[in-house]
């Protein structure tokens, strides 16, 4: 019997939904299209099949998410992952943190950064550029929103271009979205 996971980990767990995912055998053509299920791609995760209950949203959200996280130029991929992690720590989405911590480690080989974040969470002390990125993403994710002019100035002072600053805002914000699905519609189990 698998158990829910409540502590942060970089080992990606299984996601178990609280609502019944759409079955591919009974899905409508619109749901199949939103899930990107085609004759050559017949798989869809429980998460995607859960979101297929609202195919109009899913169809737009998937390309938006991929563009923000994996689009070319602008903020380097590892730093977009750090933005995702900052948001997901605040919202305590253990599954999102696991996926994006493991991607950060793949990009940077810096397990120590992730260990520090898991141990200290928002109080983590990181090297200067990582610190401003992580802090900005976390402060943009709180309620009420804590980020202020000094946090934006810190991004500029750290040498981020306007495009890189925008990419950080987007990567944190899209996890304000993803966390509110993944953490609330199901749970990580191992």
């Amino acid at each position: 019997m698998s158990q829910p996971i409540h502590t942060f980990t970089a080992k990606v767990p299984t996601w178990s939904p609280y609502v019944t995912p759409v079955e591919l055998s009974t899905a409508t053509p619109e749901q199949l299209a939103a899930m990107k299920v085609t004759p050559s791609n017949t798989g869809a995760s429980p998460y995607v099949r859960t979101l297929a209950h609202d195919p109009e949203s899913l169809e737009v959200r998937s390309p938006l998410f991929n563009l923000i996280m994996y689009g070319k130029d602008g903020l380097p991929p590892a730093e977009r992952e750090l933005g995702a992690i900052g948001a997901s720590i605040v919202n305590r989405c253990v599954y999102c943190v696991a996926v994006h911590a493991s991607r950060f480690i793949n990009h940077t080989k810096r397990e120590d950064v992730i260990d520090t974040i898991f141990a200290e969470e928002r109080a983590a002390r990181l090297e200067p550029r990582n610190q401003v990125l992580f802090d900005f993403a976390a402060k943009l994710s709180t309620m009420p929103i804590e980020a202020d002019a000094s946090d934006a100035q810190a991004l500029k002072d750290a040498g981020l271009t306007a495009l890189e600053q925008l990419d950080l805002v987007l990567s944190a914000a899209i996890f304000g979205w993803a966390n509110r699905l993944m953490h609330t519609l199901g749970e990580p189990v191992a």
Partner: protein
Amino acid sequence: MTTLIETLAGVPAGSELSAALKARAEVMRLSEAAHDAVLVPREPGGLSHALRAALAARMCRLVGNAAAAAHYDVYLAHSDDADAAVLAQPGGTCGEPRQDAMARHADLLTLAPRKATKGDIEALKAAGISEPDIVRLSELAAFVNYQLRVIAGLKLLKGVQ
């Protein structure tokens, strides 16, 4: 095309940030399409367009963005749905158990998503809300919180250009 996020963020034309937004025009276009998908979907299920607009306005007020709330109020005003209109105000209840439960869940996803548990989804089911409607409600709340953070972030960035 200037999207809603860009209008509400008010980034000055000709700035570096404005150029960055042009470079991310597809992100802005998809964000606008997502707005339409959660606010005025072709298949609204158990969440009428009026209820969606009311809950969106309510969440904007909780986060403190009056201009975004006013945007959703315009959609709401077109609907002439008095029950839904009450829900546009934080704390407002209409007395219809399903809609009030959805408003409570929108509040939770806006104010403290980290505190959400399986029990909150069970409570929605117990209130008679279908599983597809639970997902529709979650997407609406998640999108509005995304949108409000992009706007808040852009406003901060434009101040340091």
